């Protein structure tokens, strides 16, 4: 059994005093690969903000002792107007570890270079972030999250708006980070088919209701109907999940 990194006990999340989901209890263990999936407006981003500590829970306890998160936001929340280089952006991942007045040291530069290599964009080092394609930008943001040397890597809708090759190549990279680098990974997506074949635990979120557990337990036609209020067919062929919407005749 891997050690427990985060524990939610009867947590209510929301903005101000208005709850979005109540009674959330679950744990995140070392080397988990958790997918958080649900329709738009189900509270995925609110849960993520609460998990990261950016939003206080309305009720309940969250135990997480000095966890270092590596966070990859949705690409469109990053302002791309100024021509920061890829190196500059990845170096931002080291800032919180340098102290308030600290400057980047050789050690930080080495880590940044290593992270760029890890995600396969070392040749883009001096290019401006705002000149990159969607897939290259996402890899830059992942490199920045890795530069924190995190215990948990959190990705918010990482494949949103990407072309098909970049989409699958990014999912491969995320899987590789989990399998080979032994990182605990949490991936948030509104596309269930995106994450179902790479994760080992699944959280299905809908307004004021959630289910979490191993993917085999959670990914069922009944649970999907409860979450999305429509019918789905779930099949496993050659160890791959195929999920499709059932047409009403």
């Amino acid at each position, binding site marked *: 059994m891997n050690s427990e990194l985060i524990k939610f006990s009867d947590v209510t999340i929301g*903005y101000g005093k208005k709850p979005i989901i109540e009674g959330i209890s679950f744990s995140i263990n070392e080397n988990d690969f958790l997918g958080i999936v649900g329709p738009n407006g189900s509270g995925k981003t609110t849960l993520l903000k609460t998990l990261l500590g950016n939003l206080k829970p309305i009720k309940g306890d969250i135990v997480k002792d000095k966890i270092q998160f590596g*966070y990859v936001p949705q690409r469109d929340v*990053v302002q791309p107007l100024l021509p920061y280089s890829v190196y500059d952006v990845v170096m931002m991942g080291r800032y919180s570890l340098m102290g308030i007045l600290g400057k980047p040291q050789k050690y930080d530069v080495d880590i940044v270079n290593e992270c760029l290599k890890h995600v396969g964009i070392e040749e883009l080092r001096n290019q401006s972030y705002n000149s990159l394609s969607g897939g290259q930008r996402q890899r830059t943001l992942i490199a920045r999250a890795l530069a924190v040397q995190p215990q948990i890597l959190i990705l918010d809708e990482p494949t949103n708006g990407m072309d098909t090759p970049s989409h699958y190549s990014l999912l491969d990279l995320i899987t590789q980070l989990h399998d080979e680098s032994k990182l605990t990974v949490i991936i948030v997506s509104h596309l269930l088919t995106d994450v179902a074949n790479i994760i080992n635990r699944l959280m299905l979120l809908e307004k004021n209701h959630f289910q979490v557990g191993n993917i085999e337990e959670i990914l069922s036609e009944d649970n999907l109907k409860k979450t999305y209020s429509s019918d789905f067919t779930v099949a496993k062929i050659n160890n791959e999940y195929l999920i499709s919407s059932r047409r009403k005749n």
Partner: protein
Amino acid sequence: MEVIHQLFEIFPYAVLGSIIAGFICAFLGVFVVSQRAVFLGASLTQASVAGVAFSFLHLINLEGYLAKIFNVDIEHNTFFHNFEPAFFSLAFAIICVLIFSQTYRQKYLTQDGVLGTMFVIAIALRIIFIQKSPVAEVSEIESILKGDILFIGATQFYTLLAITIITFLVFLIFQKQLKFVTFDPDTAMAHGINSRFWLLIFYLFVGMGISLTTRFVGDVFAFAYLIIPSSIGILLGKKISQVFFISALVGSVVPPISIYFAFILDFSSGPTAVALVFIVFLITYLAKKIFT
């Protein structure tokens, strides 16, 4: 050459002050424009003008209190004599910034909505304050409120210089934090940097810079130099250092040239500075369109 010599002789602080005012606005403008918070500049300039108008009501005799504490004669001390308008201009801008900073990650209020509200409220307050002012004619106060580059004296120049140096040092010392929170506040927060605090520091310095520039050189100049030089820098700069360099260069070189043209053509200096920097922007934009 003779005109330049004359200008330096008659308006030495105006020429030097215009360089400093243009520089500080252009420098802060890079962050403001890249944050897509241009309307913040408009709201802050109007809040500053409302603050100056408030000082004309003479509801609080700050100058009197200060003069008593420091035992000085207000009439013969330019700093204390000009203290109240600058103080209230700054105070109103800071109130504006504090309200705006609360909109960070607000679910129910949009930043644009808050800025728009502050903008019109500031204008309304300015009108009310001027109408109720016991000291002078409305038109006379309006012209004082607008500021003028040529009115920059030694006190205004040294105040602007001090604010510019302090702002520049703060941005240099805390560049890591300010760079990260203005680029991606959510991730900065997730990585352990208090985005709320550092954004507040950022906006406070923006507020301070804009309010004092507005007070001394006018709202039109301050707003224009906040946006146009930084837009030129963003258009031309391929690296972040180039963006700052080009913005600061345009911000500090164009205003003294404008004073020269205003002087020989008998134009008002503030609007001439705005028109000239817009021409530079237009040429840059067209050149970029044609040659790239």
